[in-house]
């Protein structure tokens, strides 16, 4: 699968309260959560982004709470994937479990600037910055996680294989 979109950059340590503030956690409806995606990091984000666009973060993206509402809000907003230097661990597993595509790229914020057009090949992990004409390789995804992705998330994986 290939993704292509405009990059929206955020800094280091973007926490789940910034991705989806707790005041909106009284619902599990993806479409509701999507309306407030990234609100406390950038209140204009939802109005400026288009489907297919890409979020780029620094280190420790998605730190803080275990709320799966965070990847749900990002996915439902239409963002195609998230690229960051590193992810907080619960956000990382949540993304694979529920089917948001994410990539770890060292020094992501130096390689991609806000507004750059970026193309990602999910099968090879190749990240092309079209605006700047550079190509990078994201960190390899463990085999088990690849299986989760190809099965369509953790619950589909269990259905298909009878266990984790």
């Amino acid at each position, binding site marked *: 699968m290939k993704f292509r979109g405009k990059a929206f950059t955020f800094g280091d340590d973007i926490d789940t309260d910034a991705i989806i503030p707790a005041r909106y956690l009284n619902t599990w409806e993806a479409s509701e959560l999507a309306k407030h995606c990234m609100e406390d990091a950038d209140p204009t984000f939802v109005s400026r982004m288009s489907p297919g666009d890409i979020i780029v973060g620094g280190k*420790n993206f998605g730190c803080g709470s275990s709320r799966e509402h965070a990847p749900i809000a990002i996915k439902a907003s239409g963002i195609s994937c998230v690229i960051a230097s590193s992810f907080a661990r619960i956000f990382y*597993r949540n993304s694979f479990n529920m089917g948001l595509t994410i990539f770890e790229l060292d020094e992501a914020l130096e390689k991609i600037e806000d507004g750059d057009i970026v193309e990602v090949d999910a099968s090879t992990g190749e990240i092309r910055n079209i605006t700047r004409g550079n190509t990078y390789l994201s960190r390899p995804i463990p085999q088990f996680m690849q299986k989760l992705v190809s099965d369509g998330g953790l619950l589909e994986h*269990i259905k298909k294989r009878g266990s*984790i």
Partner: protein
Amino acid sequence: MGRTIAEKILAAHTSVENFSEGDIIKVDIDLALANDITAPVAIHAFRSKGFNTVNDPGKIVFVLDHFTPNKDIESAQQCKLVREFAKEHGIKGLFEGGEAGIEHALLPEKGLVVPGDLVIGADSHTCTYGALGAFSTGIGSTDFAAALVTSQAWLRVPESMKFTFKGELQKWVGGKDLILYLIGDIGVDGALYRVLEIDGPAIASLDMSNRLTMTNMAIEAGAKAGIIAADGVTEFYASQRSNRSYTVYRSDPDAHYVAVKEYDCSNIEPQIAFPHLPENTRGISEVGEILLDQVFIGSCTNGRIEDLRLAAHIMRNQKVSKGLRCIIIPATPGVYMEALKEGLLEIFMEAGAVIGPPTCGPCLGGHMGILADGEKALSTTNRNFVGRMGHPGSEVYLANPAVAAASAITGKISSPEEVFS
């Protein structure tokens, strides 16, 4: 090579032999926890994927603690969904109403976790139970749904880091200050994907409450789990509360750590974490004058009876500063009852504090103490992210309960010494 406590507990819960750090393994869990925010997402996923059987209802616990007593119609709907699901599947571990307390204070208090357990929880502060010598870690709602179906989870075998605390604790310093100091040292991603193993003579002298405060905040350094090996304090605590048999694990002397650090407690004064990250720590003597609009004493970090005793010790015969709101929330009904019997609630009320029912409430900006734009709060909680307790323009400072109580009286961030002198 020898193994760490974390590796030993994982080995006891998996059929995978000879795993190494970084491997992804399947583990059997002893307990899976979810709350009124994370359970609905899991139940929705469970149902929409066509599952209809919970593998082992006895291993499931629901605590409706975040937006309860229901703060609005949507929250009430979420609780109703969980309640009905629990009934439908014969899940007896449902805590709500007068039985609800903040999950990470409630589960240890009720004896639901014992040393050697492997616990997962759809709440990031599930790492709290590591103080009991258990391996416990926060996961997401889909993981929880998978645990409903299989009583299992997938985990990446984490590397461990060891932190040894030596020396005498200074006055007014507790577990909160030690863990804030550690996070200030290694940063909010300093232990990403790893286990924080905490030990040393200073830890051996801490009571269970202070230990729980420390492991509670392991996630604030990005850790997967925080662990303190079980000792006499742990065994006494667990045996008072549970009839279940338990296993005490200790790390082998030649176990592998990716980092080993030592701190001398005699250099650690009460710590304050400045906005907007728990790593922005300073000693109380370096804070300067910071005027406050609100003080909150509560949460899974510092809402236990020992925390309230400390706060009451400072607030006795004192008055909350005019114009400052001091909100105190006992973490569980057990804590509330004990505080009532000991006369602590009377001390707080006479001082002019507001006392709330056990709930997370303001800790995550849910209800009962939301901050307005530009307001500053000192809180005994664990996170001070932008907007954590209300308006994105508000500020949260983190501290221990003694500093919080003293600051409520002076109206600015203060050492308890200022109130006593």
